């Protein structure tokens, strides 16, 4: 499931939606991204998140499908907020459900790494030290690349 929204999300409610009453899920991993009050070298008062409507949903669906090909997931959810956010607010939620924990942990990490480099979102920060677009980090590309060097874990993950 993919959702792009201005509104905040409630972690507990989202987990219930993900579970959807099922009793065969053994592990749920959630990652929440939060707005920090400082960037690499400046104080942040607010952040504005822009995206490419249409392509964003397409890219996230593609990334999610890749995770399902790679790990035995029973369900997954990506919620990403857009618009103006202030420090302390949630930005992104990734949740994965599987029979066992390894698949859920790894798939959540994979989803975030691919989201960071492939999903068309852009952050604009404003604060007392000035305003500007956040620059992409090489370390995010490296994190994504590291997944392509690993074999698919679908079989091994199913046994643990």
């Amino acid at each position, binding site marked *: 499931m993919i959702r792009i929204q201005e509104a905040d999300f409630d972690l507990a409610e989202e987990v219930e939606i993900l579970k959807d009453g099922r009793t065969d899920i053994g592990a749920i991993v959630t990652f929440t*991204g939060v707005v920090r009050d400082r960037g690499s070298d400046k104080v942040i008062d607010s952040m504005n*998140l*822009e*995206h*490419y409507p*249409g*392509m964003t949903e*397409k*890219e996230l669906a593609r990334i999610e499908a890749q995770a399902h090909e790679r790990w035995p997931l029973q369900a997954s959810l990506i919620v*990403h907020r857009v618009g103006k956010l202030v420090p302390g607010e949630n*930005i*992104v939620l990734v949740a994965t459900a599987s029979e066992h924990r390894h698949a859920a942990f790894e798939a959540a990490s994979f989803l*975030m790494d691919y*989201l*960071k*480099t*492939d*999903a*068309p*979102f*852009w*952050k*604009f920060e404003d604060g007392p030290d000035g305003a500007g*677009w*956040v*620059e*992409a980090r090489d370390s995010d590309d490296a994190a994504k690349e590291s997944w392509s060097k690993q074999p698919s874990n679908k079989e091994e993950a199913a046994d643990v």
Partner: protein
Amino acid sequence: MRLLYFAWVREKTGISSEEIELPAEIETVGDLLRWQKTRGEEFAAAFEKDKVIRAAIDQTHARHDAAIAGAQEIAFFPPVTGG
């Protein structure tokens, strides 16, 4: 063809989208990036650092050597910073 601009590319060009007929000699994303630089001061500034600018053809990431034939929508934007 529809061209879209996001983040600082949008700010510098001053527009978020346009419908435009491209010269026939533009065959790739790279050709289009070079042509954008010739469209006046604002576009020259927006596309000055053309190597860092990313493109998408019909909402799918595309390399600079990708052919644009048949495309309906091409977008230009900086490297993404979501999450």
